[in-house]
């Protein structure tokens, strides 16, 4: 945590994106989280992803609940829309906002307490409805704001900082999201931006409910020996499925890859994800196999990261409800009250 604002000076040769913005233009106010918090790294990855995608900040809405993770939207995208909701209620506020204005990019930022405990139901329903959003859980496996109690995602058998062993089963949010029908499921690690940034970019471009379970070590309460969310534990148990390259539609694919080792996935907007497989032969389009793989590796104590599942033909809540393509908040009185003639036509059709 720092008291001072970040100095305005930046590198004179700083890179700019298509909009002429630098990555500094995607910053928020200075973080008040503990020094070294994994959440700050995730904020940084979100800023990097938005910068690289050249997203206009005013077309993004960031929503959160309560907790360390839910404080973070203040610390990135200072020029974007934001809503800090009641504990665990981010998904319903996000769903409402998305229904009212489908044109914005929705970034739901939550934590393991906010999504796996008090807001577990909200999380489940937003995923099963297929709200078009990026739902990121900054998962540190601990209640940091209340000084280090186990959270619902803490692994059974892991040790708290005070030496207490957790006796409850853990909720695997990625596995739950798969089971609930999310059309994009990934897991990553705050300490590996080279994996996290392309995942966030792909999730933003995904038209459907994209869920990222991001392991984020709590340096204050969950980075000790015996923890399964520490930097050391995650680094030594990371079973990365694939290495991601996110390529925007305009960029030509220049490198040839060995067949079989690379899977090229087209996204709806014409952009591409190129997956270099690392582990076993793994198909990101097979939901059942993905669930099986997650459970198998979890049983051996490994943490599966990377793009776990992707539905190539996603559909979202607006498709299900058959809403108009114009955002509801842009519909005017003539659109909403088409007049006597239209009413007569409807009545006639029902006779």
């Amino acid at each position, binding site marked *: 945590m*720092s008291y001072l604002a970040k100095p305005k000076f*930046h*590198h004179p040769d700083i890179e700019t994106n298509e909009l002429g913005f630098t990555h500094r233009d995607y910053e928020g106010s200075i973080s008040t989280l503990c*020094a*070294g918090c994994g959440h*700050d790294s995730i904020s940084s990855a979100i800023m990097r992803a938005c910068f690289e995608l050249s997203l206009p900040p005013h077309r993004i809405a960031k929503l959160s609940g309560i907790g360390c993770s839910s404080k973070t939207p203040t610390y990135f995208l200072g020029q974007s829309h934001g809503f800090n909701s009641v504990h665990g209620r981010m998904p319903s506020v996000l769903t409402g906002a998305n229904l009212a204005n489908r044109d914005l990019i929705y970034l739901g930022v939550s934590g393991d307490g906010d999504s796996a405990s008090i807001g577990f139901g909200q999380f489940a329903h937003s995923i099963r409805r297929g709200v078009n959003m990026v739902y990121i859980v900054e998962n540190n496996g601990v209640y940091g704001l209340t000084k280090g109690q186990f959270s619902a995602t803490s692994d059974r058998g892991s040790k708290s900082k005070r030496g207490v062993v957790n006796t409850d089963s853990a909720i695997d949010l990625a596995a739950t999201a798969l089971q609930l029908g999310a059309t994009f499921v990934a897991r990553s690690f705050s300490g590996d931006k080279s994996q996290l940034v392309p995942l966030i970019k792909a999730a933003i471009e995904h038209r459907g409910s994209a869920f990222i379970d991001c392991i984020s070590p709590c340096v204050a309460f969950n980075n000790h020996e015996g923890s399964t969310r520490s*930097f050391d534990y995650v680094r030594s148990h990371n079973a990365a499925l694939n290495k991601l390259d996110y390529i925007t539609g305009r960029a030509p694919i220049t490198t040839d890859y060995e067949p079989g080792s690379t899977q090229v996935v087209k996204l709806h907007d014409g952009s591409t994800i190129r997956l270099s497989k690392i582990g076993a032969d793994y198909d990101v389009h097979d939901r059942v196999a993905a669930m099986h793989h997650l459970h198998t590796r979890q049983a051996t104590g490994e943490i599966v990261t990377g793009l776990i599942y992707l539905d190539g033909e996603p559909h979202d809540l607006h498709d299900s409800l058959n809403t108009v393509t114009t955002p509801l908040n842009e519909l005017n009185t003539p659109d909403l009250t088409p007049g006597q003639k239209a009413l007569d036509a409807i009545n006639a059709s029902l006779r």
Partner: protein
Amino acid sequence: MKSTDIANPNYFHKVVDCQWACPAHTPVPEYIRQISAGDYTAAYMINWKSNVFPGILGRTCDRPCEPACRRGRVEDEPVAICRLKRVSADYKDDVRPLMPKPASQKNGKRIACIGAGPASLAVARDLAPEGYEVVVFDQDKLAGGMMRTQIPKFRLPETVIDEEVGYVLDLGIEFRGGQRIDSLKSILDQKFDAIFVGTGAPRGRDLDLPGRKEAAANIHLGIDWLSSVSFGHTDKIGKRVVVLGGGNTAMDCCRSSRRLGGEQVTVVVRSGFDEMKASVWEKEDAMHEGIPILNWLVPKEFTHRDGKLTGVIFEKVKAVLDAKGRRDLVPTGEPDTLIECDDVLLAVGQENAFPWIEKDVGVEFDRWGMPKVDPATHQSTLPKVFFGGDAAFGPKNIIWAVAHGHEAAVSIDKFCRGENIAERPSPLTNLVSQKMGIHEWTYENGVSNDLRFKVPQKETAIALRNIKTEVELGFDPKLGHAEAQRCLNCDVQTVFSAKLCIECDACVDICPIDCITFTDDGEESDLRSRLLAPAKNLTQDIYVQDGLKTGRIMAKDEDLCLHCGFCAERCPTGAWDMQKFSLEITHAGPGCRSKA
């Protein structure tokens, strides 16, 4: 790349660009912090220890520190280091109680300093408190050398010279003013244990052109004319004056002329404006006083009538690169220009002159007439004779003369004790953590967004009325504080300890300049291209540390680091720490002597 060895005193010294660039290695950020804190006396004494003449240099220094200043790479302009030095001199309390006392016991060694300019006075200051009996000779009645005779009073008031020369002479030094030395032999005969020659570059270069002899009454050598003005022998000049030359002496000549009756004063220079030797700010000050500077004109002839100068004829030239890439001035073919004038001041260079050193005393000279002097020890071929300042290696400036004085004093101290003077003492360095709390440091780490403040000046009309009216008013304490806040505290170093690092990326994420990268090791040229922000400034080092758990390295580009300490504030394990690097050059005295 090899992990950086921060134990090498040069590594962090180089990061303090200003101190590294200063010939006397003045701890600049340290005294600027004292100015911020309002402790002008402490700021003055830090300066006095390093450069002997803070009040004089705060007005006249050539400021090698300022082009080096990191702030000038981060934004448009460097910190006004020189003028902050003056703030410390202007607002200090009485510093006499803080000065060293004359030695209570003499050590029996006698040292002669010839010339009472900055180099000799620096030697005298370093040696007198150590018990040496120092005798300083000068042709003028008052000590100070060129600082007194050649720098006009509107830039450097006499009171400042009297004060600071006084601090040196008060150390129990014998000053024999008004005694011109015409023979080195006569000094050698007086059985001094060592002799320091700091006689400067006292001869102005002449221009042997047609008309020079005939119009001699109105053609003056710049530095002689300036000293004549300084002593009050000359108090007027013609209405139309041409100054030839593009150095700082030319600027002093033209601005002095404006104050002694010169109404149309013109500076004419052979080369282009940007290549002129004069400091940028001195050119600006001259132009501000209504003095045009004409470039690419080579003087051809002095015109005269009835033994009186009437003007100067110039040929127009341009710069052309020859086959070897050397720059040549060739006539453009345009018609010559005549500038009519009543007086001409020649400021086309200075030369050394040693007619008073007998050829057979053992001091050898090279073919350009310069003494053969060891660049490190300042010893001549006659072991007990040392040279410094302009007399040693040709015209430079005051701060170089002071630096030479310190080195020569070390040599003399060792020489008089029979030690090997080629063994130079290492500087005294220290590295101390500045951490006071989780995010509290002993220095103000907030970065000021202010642009460089201008030094207030006297209104030109008033300034031109009297040659003794100082033009620059100096920063007042409020402006001085604001300017001091622009300093980035480059001496507070980012020190990294790989064994404490957990590679959480917090420092990388927070760094405003993107200067920290964790990446795979590689050769320097490859690494420089792979950093988060490309490290193109090859004069600045990359700080590399290996030994991280993932096998990667930490690479930090020192070039643009703001020393804001945010990396250390965000580091959960204290792997980054802000540590103040201090470096003091060892002067004459016990510290410079062999330990054996």
